[in-house]
């Protein structure tokens, strides 16, 4: 039972990161109807930027106490990445407006490949330590271990999600963004400049991706390396599960995917043994025994996604698209 709760807690922390990445997907999709496969590269660039800033100023200067240097570096990285997101939208995505979905997806994939290779060329493929202030600090609550970085991640995810909800629902700009997402032409008729909305969507998403990237690569035994990109891909099932245009869906999807993945990781050897012992057949010399295979937990989110999409093609909280001839 303790094991179960332990898996669940670390699953929630993992899910918080997925939720953050998924929020990035959702914000861009809501605002511009683009599924941004380059989100993983935003994460990677953000985390590497933090690494660089920390290395250049943090360790020698007085910012060291309270781990202040880390937060300053993160703030700078978020601002830089937000500007980069706005720039990429203006340079690449704006000329592709009103092109077929496929074209735009491929453009973001192209960006993703080029960005990944540029990252590898600058920082290499070796894992780099981020020098974060969390270290291996672990708290023990009701017989369950929680690391400090998990707590920070959960707090960050909650804060960002709340801030975004407030922004979308209360501020003028947020309302403008929702209006553009709902009906771009009507929004233009009301005097909203869609370019600002599109640019801002990409900027916010890139900023959030930076937070997710840093959270994912700080803490006990975690480093920055290009392996962050497959993790960003795992957040796509989370975004899809909740519905690509639902902020609430991203949070729920992220948590569900994170928890199920962690539980599967914890119990997969037992499930595998059970399957191996109980399911199988023999025909002549050919014997078949069921099993999950290595690292099944990495595939599990995608299977959940496929299953969900078969029954609800627009996710759990997504709005179905109405089409007319």
């Amino acid at each position, binding site marked *: 039972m303790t094991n179960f709760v332990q898996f669940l807690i670390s699953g929630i922390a993992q899910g918080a990161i997925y939720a953050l990445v998924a929020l990035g997907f959702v914000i861009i999709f809501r605002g511009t109807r683009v599924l941004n496969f380059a989100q993983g590269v935003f994460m990677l660039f953000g985390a590497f930027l933090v690494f660089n800033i920390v290395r250049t100023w943090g360790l020698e200067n007085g910012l060291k106490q309270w781990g202040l240097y880390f937060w300053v570096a993160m703030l700078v990285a978020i601002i830089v990445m937000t500007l980069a997101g706005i720039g990429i939208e203006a340079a690449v995505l704006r000329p592709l407006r009103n092109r077929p*979905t496929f074209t735009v997806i491929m453009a973001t994939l192209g*960006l993703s490949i080029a960005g990944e290779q540029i990252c590898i060329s600058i920082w290499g493929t070796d894992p780099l330590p981020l020098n974060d202030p969390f270290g291996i600090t672990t708290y023990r609550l009701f017989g369950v271990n929680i690391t400090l970085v998990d707590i920070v991640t959960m707090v960050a995810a909650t804060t960002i999600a709340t801030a975004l909800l407030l922004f979308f629902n209360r501020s003028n700009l947020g309302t403008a963004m929702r209006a553009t997402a709902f009906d771009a032409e009507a929004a233009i008729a009301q005097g909203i400049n869609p370019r600002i909305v599109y640019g801002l969507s990409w900027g916010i998403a890139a900023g959030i991706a930076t937070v997710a990237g840093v959270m994912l690569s700080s803490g006990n035994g975690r480093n920055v390396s290009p392996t962050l990109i497959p993790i960003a891909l795992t957040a796509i099932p989370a975004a899809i599960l909740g519905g690509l245009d639902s902020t609430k869906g991203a949070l729920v999807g992220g948590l569900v995917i994170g928890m199920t993945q962690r539980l599967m990781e914890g119990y997969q050897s037992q499930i595998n043994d059970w399957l191996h012992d109980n399911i199988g057949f023999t025909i002549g010399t050919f014997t078949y025994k069921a099993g999950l295979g290595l690292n099944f937990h990495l595939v599990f989110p995608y299977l959940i996604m496929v299953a969900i999409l078969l029954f609800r093609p627009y996710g759990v909280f997504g709005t179905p698209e109405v089409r007319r001839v």
Partner: protein
Amino acid sequence: MLSGALVTLFAVAVTLATLVMWARKDTKRRLNTNYRTDLRMFLSNWKKLALVLTVVLYISAPIGFSWLGYKGIHLPSKLIPGFPLSEFALAVFNFAGIFAIGTLALNLLTGYAGQVSLGHSTFIGVGAYAAGYFGSTVDAGGLGLPLPVWLILSAAAGAIISAIVGPFALRLRGDYLAVITVGLLVTAEHLFNSWTDVTGGPVGRGSLPAPSVSVWPGKRLIFSGGEDGSADFFGFGYTRNSAFFWLIWALVAFAVVLAFNLVRSRHGRAMMAVRDRDLSAEAIGVELSETKIRAFAVCGALAGLSGALYGSYLQFVQPESFGLNLSIQYVAMMIVGGAGTISGSLIGALVIGGLDRVIDRYKWIFSWGPIKHLLFFVSTEQDDAGMKLPNFVRTLFGLLIVVFLVFFPSGLAALWDRTRRYFTRWPLAR
């Protein structure tokens, strides 16, 4: 000797002149006024002429032109500079041919039927593993079937797998379809890793169909060979690369004819209707699900064929080769060549397919003055700082995709088409 050469030249000149006169006969007839001319396979006699020349080049590429000689007329083997092709050039063309079949498959599915697929490398992988299982010898854990059989079985395996995948696409469009194909790709990679009996697991599967391409075990008909795969063909020595060149490009021709006929047929038009507007297509009586699944099956069959050739040419496959990266490379080839055109698949595969090998071979160009200054960040040596060559090539792929999508959305094939139309219909076309 001299008179022989003169006679040869004269014969070639007369043949060419006759062919050109014949080809010019119907170039004026550009406007199609009935279905028969509209559905013609060859739009002009020029194309037939080009076909003849292509066949000649196809046979001569590995062995030179001397086979054309007849009774005392000797054609020099090196009639065109660069012929016979070097082993390196043959390898580049072989990869380009393998990629051309796969790109054609993707183009039928995405360019013609409009079904976004990022899971293309799965079908390629299924073909490669099927070839490994059916084709490699019994000692190596395969079934040891002959070449035509394992080629057909690999194509069938690809078709079956993709017909299973197809129904997933029935309710989904656009972004969601792209994502579910990524999901299927990841799942397939997991299966490739786990099903060790057939795939060899994460370490991969070696010794795919024997190094010599024997048409039938024991019966060395055309393709046969020794240890290094070299052999001879009516007195002309050729190597494993040459054998594969003939095999691969014959299959490319087969795939092109198949795709061309499919596209001109009722099913092809149904596919394009689904791509352009699926609701309208359904309204005029196109069976949506049937058309989509058919497109997936054809794509899977050709991809399986391409994968089988890929596996048997490399003689080694591992699950890692069939990840998202290969899919993206195929998409890059399709986009650079031109989505929705058959010639585009070939052009894209020729341009991108061999690019990494050509760049790696001619890397001295990066130390040549102007280019060195322009691409100062690229380093050709493993230990130097800066961008390594493979990384540079991958970056180039990514940027090419973006640049082509933004500036030339219909690819190189359309660029060529537009140029040609400018000249052939001069005052009328822009």
